């Protein structure tokens, strides 16, 4: 097919020019603009209220300027975040704002330029000699913002802002280069599927391209089902055009006429922004007859309905065809026999978002980003007990220690690191001794974890490894589609065993049984849900076996998480006596004041172990503790109404 490149180039240049002019108005020398981080985490932290307060205050103080919504900078721990541009100052980023602070910011800084609210300033985005720079913070300076380059710096609902910051440049290069050259460039870049498996993208594309059966289809896998991961959500909410651009390039390379984005129903905001992006891209002729070049491609957004297994490519195709999302046997692979029996390429959100940039800046640029054998960047969603949680983008091949400690500031409240869970229900828990493992596909697999989609949940000493393993098995067991016997029944058996162990009813032979079952499930399952389901248990057994043994032999949960093995106890020597915080917090009225010593006592027969009293106890007393095993629980006075003569406490 001969493309009308001249027309495409002209059309694109006109678009970019229009975008540049609009951006100039926003970002010009004299313009004041305020950008509120409004991705899901920002909104949940109160961004909407902050935005409202900013608008009201700017009107009240007659500040000329605009309040805009933007995506996520990745610093979820600091939300709500706001970026402020005011003439005479560098762009300033504020953290942890609330409506009152937002009003103060407008009144004292935007209106008069007097007080830039230094206490809530994270840093300045550009070099200057007044304010500390963001780049000097490890959370910015040590990151490589490639995929996140535009995230949090423009309004994702405005295609012109994305264009002004370089979106769709790669598409133009791709149109000029043609399918073969696109695939060659992607191959030189060494891009691998970032959904978890790491299959070379160029090889997949070529296989599809070479398939003579027509038409070809493209699916963007945005079914980020892994609990604890949110990279795809953030990308879709913050820079949807990067994903669309990637899809158009992939379509051009593979000869696909129609594309689908299969996105989780649990991400309503991502769906909304993506829909708007598609609409705007159609209006500007980036979808449809692409830039008038004669190459035609359109995208349809399909919402998932809440099934983890649909993230598996063959299950996703079943679901897209309107059936139960049960995986098919591979081969034939989707590039041979995919959606509706047609050759289909399925790529993850991050993989596609990379292609636009690779086409724009070249394969070499992408390769250079990685360390060692890794190419490009790795995008991780950090959560759990880590201090500065959020989205982190680092060169592929950085070590876990760099990500967790150097960039994200280690563990909250100075507690002890215990493990990091990578790859969700398919991955594993790695201990401190493996923190120097580089993050790339192969090294992580060797360590017993998996790159997976990129979720990283950090655990500290207050987390129980046995219970965490049980949690993942509970998840995969519930999400097993039921097609393969070993996955369906095997995970059930493993879960039963783990539930016995956390109740303190396990026996040592159970550990061997778990390992045997794990092998059977790995070998007897069709898809990766089953094949990787035992990973969290196996890695926990490999690195934290002593905790399993403690649960079995001593009935002890050292983290105090397993309810059946743990009791709450109020230390008499620490209890303030006069204070009633715990009594008031208890939802089941299990705490009473001992008539004799006036201390607070927990009635163990009523306690539901809800943790309310421990949270309510003022820090200066810190009298509520968890005790495990139960045999170490000191004898307490019985509650007054049940006290009889023969139960008189011996104290």
């Amino acid at each position: 097919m001969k493309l009308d490149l001249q027309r495409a180039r002209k059309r694109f240049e006109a678009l970019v020019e229009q975008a540049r002019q609009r951006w100039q108005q926003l970002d010009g020398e004299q313009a004041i603009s305020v950008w509120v981080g409004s991705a899901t985490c920002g909104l949940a932290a109160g961004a909407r209220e902050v935005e409202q307060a900013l608008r009201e205050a700017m009107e009240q103080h007659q500040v000329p300027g605009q309040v805009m919504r933007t995506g996520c900078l990745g610093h979820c721990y600091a939300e709500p975040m706001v970026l402020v541009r005011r003439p005479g100052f560098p762009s300033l980023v504020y953290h942890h704002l609330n409506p009152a602070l937002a009003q103060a910011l407008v009144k004292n800084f935007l209106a008069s330029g007097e007080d830039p609210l230094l206490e809530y300033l994270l840093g300045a985005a550009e070099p200057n000699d007044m304010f500390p720079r963001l780049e000097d913070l490890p959370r910015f300076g040590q990151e490589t913002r490639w995929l996140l380059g535009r995230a949090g710096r423009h309004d994702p609902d405005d295609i012109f802002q994305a264009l002004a910051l370089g979106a769709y440049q790669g598409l133009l290069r791709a149109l000029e280069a043609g399918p073969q050259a696109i695939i060659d460039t992607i191959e030189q870049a060494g891009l691998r599927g970032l959904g978890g498996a790491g299959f070379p993208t160029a090889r997949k594309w070529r296989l599809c391209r070479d398939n003579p059966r027509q038409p070809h289809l493209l699916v963007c896998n945005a079914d980020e089902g892994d609990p604890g991961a949110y990279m795809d959500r953030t990308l879709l909410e913050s820079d949807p055009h990067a994903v669309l651009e990637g899809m158009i390039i992939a379509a051009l390379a593979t000869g696909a006429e129609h594309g689908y984005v299969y996105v989780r129903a649990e991400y309503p905001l991502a769906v909304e922004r993506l829909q708007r992006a598609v609409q705007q891209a159609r209006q500007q002729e980036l979808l449809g007859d692409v830039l008038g070049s004669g190459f035609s491609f359109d995208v349809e957004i399909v919402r998932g309905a809440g099934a983890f297994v649909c993230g598996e490519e063959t299950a996703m195709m079943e679901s897209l065809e309107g059936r139960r999302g049960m995986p098919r046997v591979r081969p034939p692979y989707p590039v041979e026999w995919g959606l509706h029996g047609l050759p289909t390429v399925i790529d993850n959100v991050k993989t596609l978002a990379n292609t636009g940039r690779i086409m724009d800046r070249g394969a070499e640029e992408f390769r250079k980003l990685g360390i060692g054998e890794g190419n490009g960047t790795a995008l991780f969603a950090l959560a759990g007990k880590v201090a500065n949680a959020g989205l982190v983008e680092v060169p592929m091949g950085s070590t876990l220690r760099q990500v967790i400690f150097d960039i994200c500031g280690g563990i909250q409240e100075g507690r002890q690191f215990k493990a990091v869970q990578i790859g969700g229900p398919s991955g594993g828990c790695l201990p401190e001794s493996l923190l120097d493992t580089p993050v790339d596909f192969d090294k992580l697999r060797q360590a017993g974890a998996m790159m997976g989609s990129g979720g990283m949940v950090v655990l500290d000493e207050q987390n129980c490894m046995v219970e965490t393993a049980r949690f993942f098995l509970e998840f995969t067991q519930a999400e097993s589609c039921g097609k393969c016997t070993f996955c369906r029944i095997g995970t059930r058996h493993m879960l039963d065993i783990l539930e016995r162990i956390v109740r303190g009813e396990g026996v040592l032979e159970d550990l061997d049984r778990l390992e045997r079952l794990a092998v059977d499930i790995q070998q007897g399952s069709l898809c990766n849900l089953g094949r990787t389901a035992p990973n969290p248990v196996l890695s926990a057994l490999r690195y934290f076996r002593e905790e399993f043994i403690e649960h079995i032999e001593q009935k002890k949960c050292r983290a105090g998480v397993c309810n059946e093995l743990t009791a709450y106890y109020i230390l008499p020597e620490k209890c303030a006596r006069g204070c009633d915080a715990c009594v008031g917090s208890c939802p089941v009225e299990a705490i009473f004041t001992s008539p004799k010593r006036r201390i607070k006592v927990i009635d163990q027969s009523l306690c539901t172990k809800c943790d309310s009293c421990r949270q309510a106890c003022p820090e200066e007393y810190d009298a509520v503790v968890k005790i495990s095993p139960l045999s170490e629980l000191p004898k307490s006075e019985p509650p007054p109404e049940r006290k009889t003569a023969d139960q008189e406490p011996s104290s």
Partner: protein
Amino acid sequence: MEDSAAIEAFIDEYLESGGRERNLVCALLAVQEKFGYLPPVGMEKLAGEFKLSPANVYGVATFYNQFRFKPPGRHNIHVCMGTACHIKQASKILDHFERRLEIKVGEVTPDGEYGLERVACVGCCTLAPVAVIDGEVVGKMSTSKIDGLMLRHQMERERENGAGKEAATARDDGEARE
């Protein structure tokens, strides 16, 4: 209960306006979005339209976690049970909701006011533990925050019911305390 004519009319309209090109799951999602759950009449109607047996449609609907087969509450609470929430004691949040509402997860209170469900992960892991209340993500949940939210809802309800000035002041107090 919705009346079946309205359900069938909605499905007809949905299919006419492009729904026929899309798949069964999309149609089920559309019905649920409109009525809050999947009424049996709707599933039977869709079975006819898609030339499937009702059992087949029910099989598809029960496969996916999103679908509900009973009407939801007026207020719906989804407690996130993702990994990050789990390690920050989401199960205790769920327990507390169950205790406060006196229902089990998956149920609706007898007065139809509250529905309680679990969700696999809403991707808001840095604010764990998280609950989604009537579509709004609420981060950093705690048992005392639940009590505060419930109190606020209760006060709002009383005010709506015309309980007058007293309830309104009490509500303000409730908010101030949060």
